[in-house]
């Protein structure tokens, strides 16, 4: 006699429910499409860009959008479109790398704090609370000012500001996982704590972390632009979106295109990431998934 009650209705292995929910959500495709466009533009900037982003041309100073210069030129006569395309590389690189660092460091801290608990947990979460109580921009500003403005330092500064939220996001599900029987079973089977955290906890909470990563990458791009705007960004003449707004700000009344186009670029990038993040969250959270 076999297990006759349920065994015969075993479902075949299906693709991940998250992927299926994502596929059904049309709005998610808008985010994915936009993001893909921006990434492609950043990668192929040298091929698409009509001009050299650094090439000054005093004859074409501050020319409005035209057939030659679709988005106009700035006060040095540089092509705004080309600078925007190159700027996408900086924004995406800083956004991606800083979030990657913050995600790795923050999640590790959060999982450790949640798993070990006790005094270690209290200390880590105490520091996280202090860091979370600073406005992101202020914290970034302090770190950037301390380290000095450069591409690498900017990544570090933004990564530091975003480590705390990842620690918080990773800790809560870790504590929930810790009470699950398979983690307890792992302990009783004599697995090392590191093995349990890596193999049994991390894969099960990764989806929560990835959702937050896409939302915080949007924030990282915004922070980068803000820091660049107040002069703590990647140094000129490198083209960055925040830096372009800062330079165009002086001529905002006579040359609107200097501010409007980079602002739109930031808006689109942040919007794409937020849509993607929301869609991922809906796809992962079973409560919203069933209605999708």
């Amino acid at each position: 006699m076999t297990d006759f009650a349920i065994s015969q209705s075993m479902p075949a292995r299906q693709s991940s429910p998250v992927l299926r929910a994502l596929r059904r959500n049309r709005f998610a495709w808008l985010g994915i499409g936009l993001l893909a466009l921006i990434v492609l533009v950043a990668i192929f900037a040298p091929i698409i860009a009509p001009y050299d982003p650094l090439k000054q041309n005093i004859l074409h100073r501050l020319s409005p959008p035209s057939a030659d210069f679709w988005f106009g030129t700035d006060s040095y006569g540089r092509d705004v479109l080309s600078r925007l395309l190159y700027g996408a590389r900086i924004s995406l690189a800083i956004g991606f790398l800083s979030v990657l660092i913050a995600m790795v460091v923050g999640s590790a801290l959060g999982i450790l704090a949640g798993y070990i608990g006790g005094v270690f947990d209290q200390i880590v979460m105490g520091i996280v609370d202090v860091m979370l109580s600073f406005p992101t921009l202020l914290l970034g500003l302090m770190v950037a000012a301390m380290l000095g403005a450069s591409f690498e330092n900017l990544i570090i500064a933004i990564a530091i500001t975003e480590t705390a939220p990842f620690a918080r996001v990773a800790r809560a599900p870790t504590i929930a996982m810790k009470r699950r029987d398979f983690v307890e079973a792992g302990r009783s089977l004599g697995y090392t704590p590191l093995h349990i955290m890596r193999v049994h906890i991390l894969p099960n909470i990764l989806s929560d972390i990835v959702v937050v990563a896409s939302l915080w990458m949007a924030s990282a791009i915004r922070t980068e632009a803000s820091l660049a705007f107040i002069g703590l960004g990647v140094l000129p003449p490198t083209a960055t979106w925040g830096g372009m707004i800062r330079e165009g700000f002086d001529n905002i009344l006579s040359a609107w295109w200097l501010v409007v186009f980079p602002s739109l670029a930031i808006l689109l990038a942040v919007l794409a990431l937020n849509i993607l993040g929301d869609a991922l969250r809906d796809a992962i959270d079973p409560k919203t998934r069933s209605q999708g």
Partner: protein
Amino acid sequence: MNLISESPMHYSGQETGFTAPAREPVMSVRNLNTSFRTGDGWKNVVRNISFDIAARETVAIVGESGSGKSVTSLSIMRLLAAESSRIEGQVMFNGRDLLSLREEDMRRVRGNDISMIFQEPMTSLNPIFSVGKQIAEALTVHTDITEAAAKAEAIRLLEKVRIPNAASRFDEYPHQFSGGMRQRVMIAMALASRPKVLIADEPTTALDVTIQGQILDLIKTLQDEEGMAVLFITHDMGVVAEVADRTIVMYRGDAVEAGKTEDIFHRGQHPYTRALLSAVPKLGSMGGRDLPLRFPTVDMTTGQQVPLAEVSDTVASTKRPILEVKDLTTRFHIRSGAFGRKTGAVHAVENVSFELFEGETLSIVGESGCGKSTTGRSVTRLITPTGGKVTVDGQDVMKLSQSALRAMRRSIQMIFQDPYASLNPRMSIGSAIMEPFLQHRLGTKTEARDKAALLLEKVGLSADMMARFPHEFSGGQRQRIAIARALMLDPKVIVADEAVSALDVSIKAQVCNLLLDLQQSLNLAFLFISHDMAVVERVSHRVAVMYLGEIVEIGPRAAVFDNPQHDYTKKLMAAVPVPDPARRRIKRNMVVEELKSPVRPVGYEPALRQYREASPGHLYRVD
């Protein structure tokens, strides 16, 4: 053998699936069919269910998980989501077909003419309103009465469900009530509108056995007083025998058999009914045996019992015990206030001592909160005990360093209650079973794979399932996988913490048989932690009864069950539902009481206990 002619009320379900009461029915269900929308079209989960139910009558629908018994009750109440389900057939009630009523009319029927109580009393009350207020709400929704009248009526209902000091508990909140008391509150709410039909969906499954007895008594009493018809949904044959006049056995969406409860129990026709009944553990079925007894198995096609294989004596009582526990104490501090001052402690385990020999099964029984699980976890040091000594295979577990402890865990393994939670959902079962072997560096990957394949066969699965994931398996199969994983390290002791409690009755019998087989072939010692007295009687050599963190009685299984000494042991045994319809309508007349709490103030020192020996090895606490 013509059984049908002997009992005119008995219908073999394959022919009609229909059963009729002696009196005029209150509710008639005809050809009820329910389908759910799935990825690939409509799936029929309840097929052609028909039955009648009269006033003062109890009809039980019994079946295992996935049989469609709960879906049947939800279909009658039309509580299934309209867009993903389809209900066909007829439910006649008061001259109207409930299935064709408009939604507003149906709402007036629900909780008014037909009430329902559910399995989980912990979640079915709203935590932010007082209990009295929630009952009063149930009253004012359907009738026009003043607030004062509603309050008076609510108190009357609380008294009716035998809640002690009803008036003073009116303003208390759900968290101040125990599970059994909450279920009483749910019943009071269901009775508020004086329903003609009460649908009880596994109302006692989540409750402890002594509380379950009280609630069953209460439902019987209230049915006599109010003259309701009761539709009782359950998986527990013992409960069915106790409450039901007539019984419908469901299997995978079909009513395979329906008839008088006595007929079903004594003259069941369908092989499934027989298989189900033979798998039901019955207290007192050991007939003077000293050794454990396998559960009988029934051939599903013929309904004939397969002869039981004898169990040989595996206990090595002359050797040194494989597990020795001396004065084990585990307390959890309760801190409160701004500075986390200790304000008390949960005395979960208090001075527990026992020995376990190679090849022996020692069961720890008791109700929730008695400390039996904490004992198991303390022995394996998943929880660090407050005091005492635990020796496994000659090694003092309490003195081991973290790395030595990990090595020790090879000798003592655990199996957990919930087979759905004890496997990592993102890991194939092959990797899950191989993992302990590889983590302890016991050999190469090939060796691990070979051993895993061997063990999978040993627990009754097949080696080619290794690439599959946990969600592809049923509960019983997952429990087998968890057992295979535990065996990977060649343990000497296995702590089985409610390892069969969450399984369906037929699966439970099979997993118990598997554990007995493994004990026979591998000489394993089991610390079998369970609340289920009937299963414990079947599988164990010795039994320890725990109450409020202490062992109140311990001894050879036959001695404890045939000649219980401590009052609590007697009470526990009296409360177990007996799967014998002859005992129906016999009330236990148990005193309404709640389980006591093991929470003590700071500085509390437990009394020194004296134990008296009733027969060799059979000790009980002197109170």
